[in-house]
């Protein structure tokens, strides 16, 4: 096939490194054919976007249907490899850690009463008299897929279109049926309508043979081009006809892939896309699915294994799993099944987005990653040289450059930490005690005003969801705290139950309204005394007072193992409070501590971090925290499950381990001491500066509750927790 008309060149494109001239109006595929080559690796060309035989890499984007893309000067086209898939674009992995700055693709969002896909006659008829938006590929609106909603994602000039529509009409017409027979992967075969397009483009097809259902096979030369076609006449006689081009006319199939991906009554097909066209004869030999290379033999083998239903046959043989999603093979596979069952052909298989290549930039256009919150002390942390990291939905200081120094400040002096990220919820109302008694596994009614209690939050299965403090502010008012990462879920949880029980309780989430600074260490009390806390609350007490002129809710508790006071306050006072603490604690050796030191401090105390140490089915007993559950209460969420399973031995337990040397990575497997079997995993790990050992918390499987285990190739011993100050004297000091 070559250019038959001396038309003026509109420019050149590069195909596999060779320049090829094209004329005005050429698609890339037509331009390549005009040059005497084929855009893909052979196979019948439909030039209508239905098959995968013209796929190529265009300007670094793979899987482009070159028949649907207009040639432009300077375009770079590479054919897909003869074997395997096109390689992914090379990426500097370091880029993955940065915010993408590459392509900024605009997204236009719109809504339509009716969206009609396809601008031909049936589409125009469907749109007539209706408030319709037409999406016509000829007009540059290339539909990529239909999603639940229903919503259409389309590529349009200059960007992407996200179109929601009350009704979607698929009026995409019909596709030419592809041949399935030996030699169907040769170059030089075109469908009937593709031939019309090529002739209209002024391309000389050479010696043309038109074939229909009399087709038996194609014959080629060593270069992969067709040189003859073999047909069978009505009398059974075979004839071989030399040719340059074979034009195949096997009928039509509905071009309904978009309709097949939408499981919505709001999506319908009309016109030729909705017609159940006659199927071709059942294939007997050759490649059925050019995209995946599935042959008739493959179909036979899958059928013989019992995959006799269309969706199963598709998955077992891979026919229809390629880029064209059955555009080439579906009529043949349906005919194959109908032939074997003797019944009507099965309904077509489903399809999924995308029906056209889509780049990651296009798919991600105008979508966003989760937003991470900043505490009001963010800039203070940066000023101190903090390495910030994302944790529990927040940016938090991981350390300030000296983890061990931060640790010693807590153990021997005074330190402050930003715990603004903790969940903070106020609950108030005449039924509030009743509600909290039902929600929490601990007693609530006996918490006196000004006192607090540590509490687990369990689900109906008795599994630990979260933990925190219950602080009584008044007879009918409490403050609840939760973990940073679990706060939102916990808030929803208590709201849902209060609504379910129809109790008179108001709930206000204050997590992002209040900041909190943890002042901890042996000198914490002295520092706070300098700033106005003349009568500090005793352990588990809380008061409202001003610290450095900032109104604070001061909570006396401890996660570090040392005396600790959490100063909860309005976020507009955070910076002033933080700076006052740093200033007045300077002679006490104050320094800020980050999460890494905090995790080590808590590990020495054996405190659990829900979500980090726990699993989805962790019960209080497995954590060794039965003391936090009062089974004598008549009811609370999770009680029935805990009672039902009370007699069952635990299959694993969360315990402490110690060994010499540096701490192993968190997540390390725990082996039996002989190193034969993995019996658990490490959830927390820390080289204790104080105890001079590697300390770990982790899970150990029942049946192997040995006192000695192997971690990181070293022998470790099971040790009771807390590792540090087991009497809790320092926290209460």
């Amino acid at each position, binding site marked *: 096939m070559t250019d038959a008309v001396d038309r003026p060149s509109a420019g050149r494109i590069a195909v596999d490194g060779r320049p090829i001239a094209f004329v005005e109006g050429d698609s890339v595929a037509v331009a390549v054919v005009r040059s005497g080559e084929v855009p893909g690796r052979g196979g019948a060309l439909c030039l209508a976007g239905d098959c995968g035989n013209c796929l190529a890499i265009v300007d670094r984007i793979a899987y482009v249907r070159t028949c649907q893309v207009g040639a432009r000067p300077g375009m770079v086209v590479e054919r897909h490899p003869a074997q395997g898939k096109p390689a992914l674009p090379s990426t500097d992995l370091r880029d993955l850690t940065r915010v993408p700055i590459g392509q900024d693709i605009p997204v236009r969002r719109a809504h339509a009463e009716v969206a009609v896909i396809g601008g031909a006659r049936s589409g125009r008829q469907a749109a007539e008299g209706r408030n319709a938006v037409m999406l016509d590929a000829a007009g540059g609106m290339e539909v990529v897929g239909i999603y639940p909603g229903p919503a259409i994602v389309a590529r349009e000039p200059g960007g992407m279109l*996200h179109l929601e529509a009350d009704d979607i009409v698929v009026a995409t017409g019909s596709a030419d049926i592809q041949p399935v027979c030996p030699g169907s992967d040769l170059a030089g075969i075109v469908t009937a309508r593709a031939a019309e397009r090529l002739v209209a483009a002024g391309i000389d097809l050479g010696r043309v043979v038109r074939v229909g259902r009399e087709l038996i096979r194609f014959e080629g030369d060593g270069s992969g081009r067709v040189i003859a076609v073999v047909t069978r006449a009505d009398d059974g006689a075979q004839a071989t006809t030399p040719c340059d081009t074979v034009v195949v006319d096997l009928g039509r199939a509905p071009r309904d892939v978009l309709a097949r991906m939408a499981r919505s009554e709001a999506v319908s097909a009309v016109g030729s896309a909705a017609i159940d066209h006659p199927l071709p004869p059942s294939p007997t030999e050759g490649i059925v699915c050019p995209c995946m290379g599935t042959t008739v033999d493959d179909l036979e083998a899958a059928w013989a294994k019992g995959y006799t239903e269309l969706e199963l046959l598709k998955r077992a043989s891979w026919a229809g799993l390629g880029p064209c999603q059955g555009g080439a093979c579906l009529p043949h596979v349906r005919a194959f099944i109908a032939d074997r069952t003797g019944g009507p052909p099965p309904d077509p298989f489903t399809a999924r987005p995308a029906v056209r290549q889509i780049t990651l930039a296009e798919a991600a256009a105008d979508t*966003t*990653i989760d*937003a991470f919150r900043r*505490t009001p002390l963010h800039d203070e942390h940066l000023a101190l040289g903090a390495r910030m990291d994302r944790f529990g939905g927040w940016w938090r200081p991981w350390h300030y450059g000296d983890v061990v120094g931060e640790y010693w400040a807590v153990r021997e002096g005074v330190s402050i930490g930003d715990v603004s990220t903790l969940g903070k919820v106020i609950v108030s*109302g005449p039924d509030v005690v009743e509600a909290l008694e039902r929600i929490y596994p601990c007693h609530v009614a006996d918490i006196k005003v000004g006192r607090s209690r540590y509490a687990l939050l369990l689900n109906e299965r008795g599994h630990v969801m979260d933990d925190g403090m219950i602080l009584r502010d008044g007879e009918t008012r409490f403050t609840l705290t939760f973990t940073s990462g679990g706060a939102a879920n916990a808030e929803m949880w208590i709201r849902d139950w209060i609504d379910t029980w129809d109790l008179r309780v*108001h709930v206000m989430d204050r997590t992002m*309204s209040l900041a909190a600074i943890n002042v901890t260490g042996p000198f914490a009390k002295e520092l706070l005394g300098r700033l106005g806390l003349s009568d500090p609350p005793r352990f588990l007490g809380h008061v409202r007072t001003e610290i450095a002129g900032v109104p604070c809710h001061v909570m006396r508790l401890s996660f570090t193992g040392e005396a600790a006071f959490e100063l909860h306050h309005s976020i507009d006072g955070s910076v002033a409070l933080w700076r006052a603490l740093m200033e007045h604690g300077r002679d006490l050796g104050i320094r800020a501590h980050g999460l890494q030191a905090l995790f080590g401090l808590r590990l020495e105390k054996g405190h659990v971090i829900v979500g980090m140490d726990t699993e989805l089915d962790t019960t209080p007993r497995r954590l060794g925290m039965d003391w936090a559950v009062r089974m004598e209460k008549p009811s609370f969420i999770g009680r029935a499950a805990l009672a039902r399973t009370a007699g069952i031995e635990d299959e694993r337990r969360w315990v402490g381990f110690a060994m010499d040397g540096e701490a192993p990575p968190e997540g390390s497997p725990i082996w039996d001491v002989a190193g034969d079997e993995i019996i658990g995993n490490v959830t927390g790990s820390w080289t204790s500066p104080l105890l001079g050992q590697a300390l770990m918390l982790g899970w150990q499987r029942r049946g192997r509750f040995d006192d000695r285990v192997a971690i990181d190739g070293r022998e470790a011993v099971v040790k009771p927790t807390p590792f540090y100050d087991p009497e809790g004297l320092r926290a209460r000091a």
Partner: protein
Amino acid sequence: MPALEPVEAWRVVAAPAALDSARWSGDVVDVLRIAPDEALGIGATGVTVDDPDGIVEPEAGFVVALLGPDQLAAVAAHVDWPMPAEHGTLAQGKIGGVPSKALVGEPSLVVTNAAYADELARRLGW
């Protein structure tokens, strides 16, 4: 360029009927009814509500940007829900993927938690 600024505000959780008749103090107060039982009074210097168990707190946790019609239209390009046209309508959802609220009016208000302020401003190019 719009800017998200801290605002004086009060926040109330109370019985819906009590919230309906809440008395807000302040020169210019925009009351955002966040939920049937919750309201945020932007610009309020105080509030009285007839619910003895109502939770009434001064609120410094939100930031607000004032927008003209064109600026609101630019914000609307960053949401996947329809921006209401009627003045006085409160919309809540994600703007540029950041939990936010928009109160349509003259000017319109975009409201988010202070914890999200930097992220929202960055995503909107402010």
